Every structure is written in structure tokens, then in C-alpha cells.
């Protein structure tokens, strides 16, 4: 069977599994069946897609007599979709493995088990779809399945709100994509991708299609300012689903954008790179700043997803600009960076959500200021979480660093742009990327340090214990992957060659031939990086240092109460909390991203009550963009609603008015 047929078979099985999941949800067998099944199937897809990616041959197009009758449902696996299939199936496999254990804590499995395989099936379908109708159908199906998963814990009011905002935004995005496809399909309705490629649109239509795709895919990916649903919806779902949504679904959106903007929309126009770069950099900064401020562990991770997607889009923006300027090698570098970052993000964001899920199931708590000291109680989870946090903070020798390094490298090639606008924009975006990366490190010091280090801030945190083996295994696999992908980046880059070929028409020079497994994007004299050597050096020097110290110096250790400048306090609440940690950053950046309202209630001298600091954070984008819209709709609804309560005579008057108006039109018609 061909790759695409195998994928479709997997989808069919997943859908069957979803149906079965509805019936056997209550039993532990059901859990094992569904998650075991998704694990096996996603491994299958992983194998198939990995093969397709590495071989890189253009697969055949499979046509089923479904969907739009005269177009048919077309499916196709090319290296680009194969790469994203790898990302999605990898995240799904890990999530399934994790859920084998984590799913035990689910209070209402009937609301999770049927939708989990359906969600995965939807994502796979989007990636293999090769006509507009099938694509959008799968796209919305994916949204719908994930909506149901967000709704799983529906009794909590905020989850319902999250699900609602999510669905409305998702539908908005779908309509935008529909517009993009309508423009590309032309007046005769050529909905098949192959037909779109064969007849590229006119320049104006292509520009509009590009922008519509940016809005449509961007709203799903979580680009600012369309990101507002994401920090609500991702944390509301069960943690393994959050991981899938953040790790995999946002990548499907990235895929959609690449597919439309790079593959279908014809020849590039350099001006379009500008919104891409600006939106990407803005998402990065806004995302990470919000992540720094939030007190909810899963929401921090969700905001960080916005940040990382922003980085991916910066990479795409550079790729697009380079392609438009006719620098294939540079375009290949930027595209590889974007794709690699997408992959990396899928790995470490899933890992981090698993960790958050583990914390949640061990303590029942997501709020940072109720956690603390978990590293001593959940050592393994803590270690994996630490690896994830380090990777996402772009610390060498882990994988996150490689992709961000490559993005910065592509910034360095940007003086060669012929356009002034891009020349000035490029270093600004580069600085933005650097700022984002640095803030991300601060963010994950906080996100890891506050819950896992220090002393427990609540009883729940004090009583926490290590989680089950399945969860740990899933985290271990991903943590290992973070390390491996960081140590051998050259192999990853080479695997991406076929995909970048498809997107920008070029690929990076082969890296496996480089000595010592290092990578050099353009030439070794220009820049190079060797993850393996850096890793080995760090390991060597750390062991050397510790060996020498332990050999020649005192090995004695005494446990004692903390010194703390001689101010021994017993209460864990005197520790730095998440809010106090981010206070300096809030003071510096506060005005940009959020509306901060600090209210200090200071007692007069002599009063004994404690002083209080109240802090309220508002999202500036929500306030300026969404609230007016909501208010306008409400107001219009109220105004129009009067029409429900007219008397019959007044209704007749309306009919009469319509008649007279039409007659007048008719009488005055030229």
C-alpha cells in the first residue's frame, strides 16, 4: 500500500476507534483500547510518513468518490505533508502513551475517549487532503473534535467560555481559509490543489489569498492578535489533549499556511513578507510576556505556544522574503529553521504539558502560587520537566537552541535584500527574536522554578507523589528526543531537505557530510554549530570539575535550615511567588502588552492590619480589538430585537414599506 492509502486506513481505524470509545468509555479496557489503539496507529503513521519524508518521492494522488461530487476527495502525501505527519503522529504517539496512565484520573472518560482518536484523525486528514473541500472539512472536523475535548470538563464555567471562544474563532479562521481557497480556485471552482497549482491566480487575487490564509491559519496557530482563544482553550482540555493542541494542532495550522502561501498562491511578492515578519515577531513578544505574567501553569504553556508559533512565522517570513528576492539558499535556511522549530516545539511543548498534567494529577493544582518543592517529591517528572524547560529556553545543547540559532542565522543574511523596508525590518525582527528567546528563558525559570523548587506552598503540593509509569515513559521519550535532536541537528536538517525543496524550491547543503556532525547553514567559515561537541564538552568539563573537587576537596555535606541572611522564616509564603518573580519584568514591559492595574492598600501608621497589593492584568488586544466588537454586536442585537415586539399593524407597515420601496425602485429604474 502507498503512504497515502496507509494514512487513510489509519484514519478509518481511528474513526472506528472513536465510535468504539463511545461505547466502552466507562471501563479501563476502553481506556487501554482507545489509547493503545491511537498509540499503535500514530506509530504506524509515523513510520509511513517518516519513510515518505526521507525517500522524498512525490507520492500518488488518491481519489475517493467522496466530498464534492465533481472534484472528489483527493489525498496526497508529499514531503511537506509527510514532515507534518511526522510531527503530528509523534506528538500523538507520545500523548497516547501518556494518556494510558494519565487517563486513569479522568472523571468523565465518556467525554474524552471518543473524541481523542477523532481529533487525531482530523489532523491527519488535513495533512493528507489535496483538495480545498476535503481540506476544510477535515480542518473543521479537527476543530470540532478538539472543541469537544475542551468541553470535556464542561461543568466549569470558564471551560465553557473557552470552548465557545475557541469554536467561534475556529469558524472565523475556516471562513478566512474558505475565502483563500475561493480566490485560488477561480470562477470555475477548481478546488483540487493540483488544479490550483496548474492555474496560478492573478497577482491581486494571490495577495488576497495570502492574507486570507494568514488570517485563517494564523487564527488556528495562535498568531497575535488572533490568539485570544488559545490561552483559554488549550489549558481547559485534559493535559494530553492540551499537549496535542499545542504541540500538534498549531503545527497543522502552520502546514496550512505553508501549503497555501508557498505552494498554491503562485509566485511570491516581497511585500507580503512584511506582515508575516511583523506578526511573527509581535506574537513572539506578546506571547512570552503574557506567559511570564500568568499564574496558571498550563496557561503559561499555552501563551508560550503563541510565542513559539511567532518564531516559526518569523522563519517563514524570512523564507518567503528570500524566495521573493531570489536567494534560494537563504530561503532554504529560513524554511528549514521554521520547520525544525515547529518540530522541536511539538516535542518540548508536549513534554511540558505532560509535566503540567502530572503536576495536576499529583496535586490537583495548576496555580503556581499553590505549588512548590515538587522536585523533591516528583523527581523524575521534575527532571523531564527541567529538560523541557531548558529546551524551550533555547539552551545548548538541546534542540530548541538549534532552530533558534538557525533563525538568527537567516536574519544575518538579510542585508542582501534588495528592498529598503526589509533591510530595516530584518534587524528589528532579529532583535525581537532575541528578546523573545531571552524572555522565554526567564519565563521558564519561573514556570519550572516556582512549582518545582523552593518549599511547598500548599498542603496539596506537600503531599504530592510521583506519577504512573506510562506518564513517565512518555515524558522520558520526549526528553530524550529533545536531547538527541539537539545533539544531531545535521540529520534533522537533512531529513527536511525534501520538504523545503517543495516549499521554497531549494534545500540546505547536505549536513551529514560535514566533519564531526556539525552543521553549517551556508559555509563553515561563516557560522557553524556542533551540538554533539558542545554537549560532550559540557559533560566533560562538568565531570572534570566535579571529579577534581570531590577528589581533592572536602566531600562533607551538612543539612541545615536555610540561612537566608539570618532571617529564618518558617512560612513558605515568604518565598518569591510567581507574581513577585515577574514583577520587575512587568514594570519594564508592562505598558506594551497589558493593561496593568496595581492597587496598593497601605495601612496608616499605627494600624495593625497588613498592607495589600492588588494586581489586575488585562489583555490589551482583547480590550482594543475584541471587546468593542462584542459590544457592537450586543448593541445591534438589542436595537434590532425591538422588531420582535411590534404590533401586527406595525409589521404590516414594514411589509407595506418594502412593497412601496420596491415599486419606487421599479418606477425609477432606468
Amino acid at each position, binding site marked *: 500500500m502507498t503512504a497515502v492509502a496507509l494514512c487513510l486506513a489509519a484514519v478509518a481505524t481511528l474513526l472506528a476507534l472513536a465510535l468504539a470509545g463511545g461505547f466502552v468509555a466507562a471501563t479501563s479496557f476502553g481506556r487501554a483500547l482507545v489509547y493503545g489503539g491511537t498509540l499503535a496507529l500514530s506509530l504506524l503513521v509515523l513510520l509511513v510518513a517518516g519513510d515518505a519524508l526521507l525517500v522524498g518521492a512525490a507520492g500518488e494522488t488518491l481519489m475517493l468518490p467522496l466530498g464534492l461530487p465533481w472534484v472528489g476527495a483527493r489525498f496526497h502525501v508529499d514531503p511537506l505533508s509527510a514532515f507534518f505527519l511526522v510531527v503530528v503522529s509523534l506528538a500523538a504517539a507520545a500523548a497516547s502513551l501518556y494518556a494510558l496512565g494519565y487517563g486513569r484520573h479522568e472523571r468523565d472518560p465518556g467525554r474524552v475517549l471518543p473524541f481523542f482518536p477523532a481529533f487525531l484523525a482530523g489532523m491527519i486528514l488535513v495533512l493528507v487532503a489535496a483538495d480545498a473541500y476535503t481540506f476544510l*472539512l477535515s480542518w473543521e472536523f479537527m476543530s470540532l473534535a478538539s472543541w469537544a475535548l475542551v*468541553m470535556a470538563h464542561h461543568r466549569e*464555567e470558564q471551560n465553557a467560555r473557552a470552548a465557545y471562544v475557541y469554536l467561534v474563532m475556529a*469558524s472565523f479562521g475556516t471562513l478566512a481559509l*474558505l*475565502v483563500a481557497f475561493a480566490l485560488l480556485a477561480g470562477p470555475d471552482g477548481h478546488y483540487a490543489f493540483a488544479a490550483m497549482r496548474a492555474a496560478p491566480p492573478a497577482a491581486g487575487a494571490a495577495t488576497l489569498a495570502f492574507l486570507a490564509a494568514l488570517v485563517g491559519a494564523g487564527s488556528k496557530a495562535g498568531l497575535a492578535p488572533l490568539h485570544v482563544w488559545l490561552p483559554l482553550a488549550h489549558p481547559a482540555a485534559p493535559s494530553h489533549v492540551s499537549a496535542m493542541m499545542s504541540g500538534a494542532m498549531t503545527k497543522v495550522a502552520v502546514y496550512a499556511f505553508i501549503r497555501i502561501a508557498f505552494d498554491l498562491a503562485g509566485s511570491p511578492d516581497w511585500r507580503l513578507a512584511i506582515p508575516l515578519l511583523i506578526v511573527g515577531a509581535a506574537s513572539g513578544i506578546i506571547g512570552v510576556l503574557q506567559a511570564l505574567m500568568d499564574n496558571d501553569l498550563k496557561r503559561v504553556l499555552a501563551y508560550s505556544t503563541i510565542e513559539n508559533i511567532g518564531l516559526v512565522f518569523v522563519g517563514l517570513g524570512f523564507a518567503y522574503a528570500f524566495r521573493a528576492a531570489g536567494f534560494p539558499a537563504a530561503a532554504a535556511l529560513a524554511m528549514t529553521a521554521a520547520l525544525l522549530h515547529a518540530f522541536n516545539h511539538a516535542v518540548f511543548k508536549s513534554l511540558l504539558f505532560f509535566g503540567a498534567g502530572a503536576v495536576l494529577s499529583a496535586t490537583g493544582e495548576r496555580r503556581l502560587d499553590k505549588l512548590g518543592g515538587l522536585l523533591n517529591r516528583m523527581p523524575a517528572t521534575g527532571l523531564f520537566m527541567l529538560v523541557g524547560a531548558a529546551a524551550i529556553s533555547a539552551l545548548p545543547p538541546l534542540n530548541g537552541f538549534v532552530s533558534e540559532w538557525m533563525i538568527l542565522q537567516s536574519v544575518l543574511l538579510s542585508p542582501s535584500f534588495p528592498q529598503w523596508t526589509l533591510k530595516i525590518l530584518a534587524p528589528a525582527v532579529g532583535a525581537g527574536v532575541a528578546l523573545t528567546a531571552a524572555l522565554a528563558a526567564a519565563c521558564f525559570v519561573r514556570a519550572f522554578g516556582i512549582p518545582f523548587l523552593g518549599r511547598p506552598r500548599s498542603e496539596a503540593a506537600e503531599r504530592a507523589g510521583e506519577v504512573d509509569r506510562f506518564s513517565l515513559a512518555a515524558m522520558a521519550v520526549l526528553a530524550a528526543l529533545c536531547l538527541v535532536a539537539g545533539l544531531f541537528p545535521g540529520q534533522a536538517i537533512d531529513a527536511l531537505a525534501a520538504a523545503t525543496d517543495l516549499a521554497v524550491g531549494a534545500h540546505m547543503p547536505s549536513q551529514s557530510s560535514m566533519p564531526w556532525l556539525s552543521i553549517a547553514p551556508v559555509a563553515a567559515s561563516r557560522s557553524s554549530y556542533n551540538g554533539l561537541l558542545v554537549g560532550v564538552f559540557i559533560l566533560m568539563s562538568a565531570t572534570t570539575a566535579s571529579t577534581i573537587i570531590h577528589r581533592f576537596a572536602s566531600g562533607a555535606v551538612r543539612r541545615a535550615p536555610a540561612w537566608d541572611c539570618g532571617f529564618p522564616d518558617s512560612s513558605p509564603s515568604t518565598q518569591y511567588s510567581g507574581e513577585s518573580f515577574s514583577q520587575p519584568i512587568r514594570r519594564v514591559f508592562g505598558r506594551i502588552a497589558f493593561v496593568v492595574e496595581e492597587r496598593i492598600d497601605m495601612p496608616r501608621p499605627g494600624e495593625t492590619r497588613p498592607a495589600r497589593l492588588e494586581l489586575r492584568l488585562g489583555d490589551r488586544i482583547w480590550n482594543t480589538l475584541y471587546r468593542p466588537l462584542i459590544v457592537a454586536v450586543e448593541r445591534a442585537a438589542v436595537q434590532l430585537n425591538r422588531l420582535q415586539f411590534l404590533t401586527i399593524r406595525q*409589521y404590516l407597515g414594514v411589509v407595506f414599506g418594502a412593497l412601496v420601496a*420596491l415599486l419606487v425602485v421599479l418606477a425609477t429604474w432606468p
Partner: protein
Amino acid sequence: MSLAPDATVVLLAVPLAASALLAVLPSYRLSAALNVAAAFAAFLAAASLFVAAPRPNAYIVIDDLNVVFIVLNTFVGFTASVFSATYIAHEIDTGRLGATHLRFYHAMYQFLLFAMNLALIANNIGLMWVAIELATLTTVLMVGIYRTQAAIEAAWKYFILGSVGIALALFGTILIYMAAQPVVGEGVPAMLWTTLIEHAPQFDETLLDLAFVFLLLGYGTKVGLAPLHAWLPDAHAEGPTPISAVLSGLLLNVALYAVLRFKLLLDGNARALAPGPLMVTLGLVSTVFAAFMLYRRRDVKRMFAYSSIEHMGIIVFAFGVGGPLANFAGLLHMAMHSLTKSAIFYAVGQIAQVKGTQQIAEIRGLTVSHPLLGWSLVFGVFAIVGLPPMGVFMSEFLIVSSAFERAPWLALTLAAGVLLALGALVLRMQGMAFGAPVGPTAPAKASALPMLSHFALVLIAGVWLPPPLVAWFQHVAQLLR
């Protein structure tokens, strides 16, 4: 005699006879069974029309356009009768209706089917007008059947607005006759579809224009287009639920069918006003207006009635845009809307029965207390707001994408309306289907089968349309231009 003429006779005679019989039959169980049987017979007869259609004569015409409507009508009429059989029994238990009322109800039900079938197969535009008037009057009586103050008010409003609409339609019909008379000659032939469409190119175009204005407003009142819609929400909300389903699923289509027929005439005349812009405007106004109205609804049936206005707007918009793609989409959307909306009303009727209220605020947590009903509501709302993989998605996909090519701003407005409606419906649906359940938890009594069968059809249509159906629709779409 061949089989086919029999089929049309069956379509008319069976409901009429059943209606007479039901008027005198005392046992409501037997009545319900007879009702179902008659509706089923009509459905079979309609289905046979696909195989062999009779040649048109002075009274009856079966062509590609109306056979789609007839089959859809009889099918929904049949499932609604099945639903009604189990639903209405419960109304007796709760004492909302007495035995006499039920006799009346069943007789009227079959009479309504008769009138609608007649309207659809009539070759004479006068006959069609009479049939639609009969159907309207019948539904007026059924809407007022509970005799509560609200029900009587709704029926009265429906009656007055419907009568004015009917008067306008008649004026338009007369105008059509006057346009045809100099060309075709006096008498009956000047009122027959078959001759009208044949000679349409020679008609006086200004008379046709004027006629169309009246017909659009007259029959448009029945379609429920804003601003002529006022009767519709109340009639849906206050009548018995099977009738709400029939109203949304069938009667609106019948009126739409009439509008389409006359649009064909105008399309056939090169000098006449293009009906498209008019229909597009009315369609857009209806869609956007109804979408806003959805936000403030507190009564669940009234809310879905507004959703019907919205969808009728979309359909009229599609036909107004024209072209093979949009026409195809319009037909598909009409079929999908009929199936989905009637199924939603089946669900809503049961929900209102088990919860004892139609107030949205008093219904919560249905997926917990009544999983089947709750998830059906979820499914129905998703289907009706145009989310895949349900059929409405396909038609909306085609409508928006094909309209975008011709009139981008109009298509965007339509898309905005659809999105607004989605926002409102999903918001209310989430409130009703999720959260902690409140109120009675007694299981539903009515049959879920009609609802589920509709949903199954809608689901299948989203991913797969049978090729013969597609060919049929495409042919009609070509016909409509």
C-alpha cells in the same frame, strides 16, 4: 394506464382521503397510525416519480425542479408524522390537548400535506396559489391549537400577515397572466407553467418585472424573508412541535419553490429585470438580521425559527447569485436545511416535553441528564451552523466560494452573517447541553428514530452525495441558470 399518473393521484388523493377519514376517527392511536401510513404512502408515490414521471397536463406538471421538492416534502412529512405519533400522545397525557383536538390535528395534518403536494405539482399558477393559501390557512389553525393567549396571538399574526402576502401574490399572478395573455391567448393556457416558460421570451418585460415584485413579496412572506418574516418566529414557537418542523422543513420550501418558478420566467426573458440582485439583497438582509436576532432569544423554538429565517436568506442569496455552482448549492442547502431543521425541532420538542419548558435559561446539562437528546442537540446545532462533516457545510462552502468570485463583498457579508449566527446558536447550545443539569430528569417518550435518520442523512450528505442525486441537482442548477 401507466404507473406514473397513479403516482400523482396517490400524492393528492391519499392525503385528502386520509384527512377526511381522520376527521371522524375517534381513537387517537389509530389516527396516529393511519397518519403515518398515509404519509408513507405519499412518500412512496413521490419516490416513484423519480422512476417515471407523467407527462404534464393542464393540472399537473412533474419536472426536474419540483420532483426534488416533492420527494423531500413527502419524506419529511413522513418522518414528522412518525415523530408526531409518539409526541402528540404525550400531549394528551399532560392534558394540553384533548381527543377532539387530536382528531382535528390529524385531519389537518393530512390536509396540509395534500395542499403542499398540490402546490408543488400544480401546473396552473392559479391552482398553485390556491394550494398555498390552503396550506397557510391549515397551518394557521394548527398553530393556534393550544388556544393559549400566546398561541392565538401567533396564529392571528400569521393569519393577517399571510393573508396580505397571499393578496400580493395573487396580484402578481394576475399580472403574469396579463403578460402572457397577448402572447399565448386567453384562457387557461396563459396560466400554465409549461406554456409560460415556453413563451417567456416574448412577454412584456415591464409587466413581468412588476409581477415579480409582487410575487417575491407575496410568496417571500411565506418564505419568511426579512422584513416580511414577522409571523414566522411566533408561529414556530407557539404551535405543536411537529408543526414547527413541518413549517420550517416544508412550507417554507413550498413558497420558495413558487419564487423559483417565477424567477425562471424572468430569467427566460432577456429584457426583463434580472431577479438576482433583488433576491441577493433580501437574502442578505434576512441572514444578517436573523443572525443578530438570535442573540436575544430566550425561547428555544423561537430561536431555531430565526435560524430558519437565516437559512432561507442563505438559500435565496444562493439562487440570487445564480450560476451552476450557486444554484446547486442553493438546492443542496434547501434539502439539508429541511432535514436538519426538522430534526432539530424533533429534538427540541422532546427536550421541551421532558423539561416542561421552552425557556433556554431553564434548560441545562442535557448531555448529562438526557445524553441522546443532548448530543442530538449538539449535533443538530453544529449541522445547522454549517460545521463539517455535515451537509450544510458543503452547501455553505459552495455558496460562499462561488459567490466570492462574483461579488466578494456580498459573500463576505454573508459569511459574517453565518459567523454571527454560529456565535449565537453555539452559545445557547452550550448552555443547554452542558453544565450541571437542572430540572426534571424523566426520560423522553417520543421516538428518536425520525431525528436520528435525518441526522444520518445529513451526515452522509456532508461527505458523500449519491451520483444520481448530484446529476439531478446539476441538471436543475443548469435549468435555473
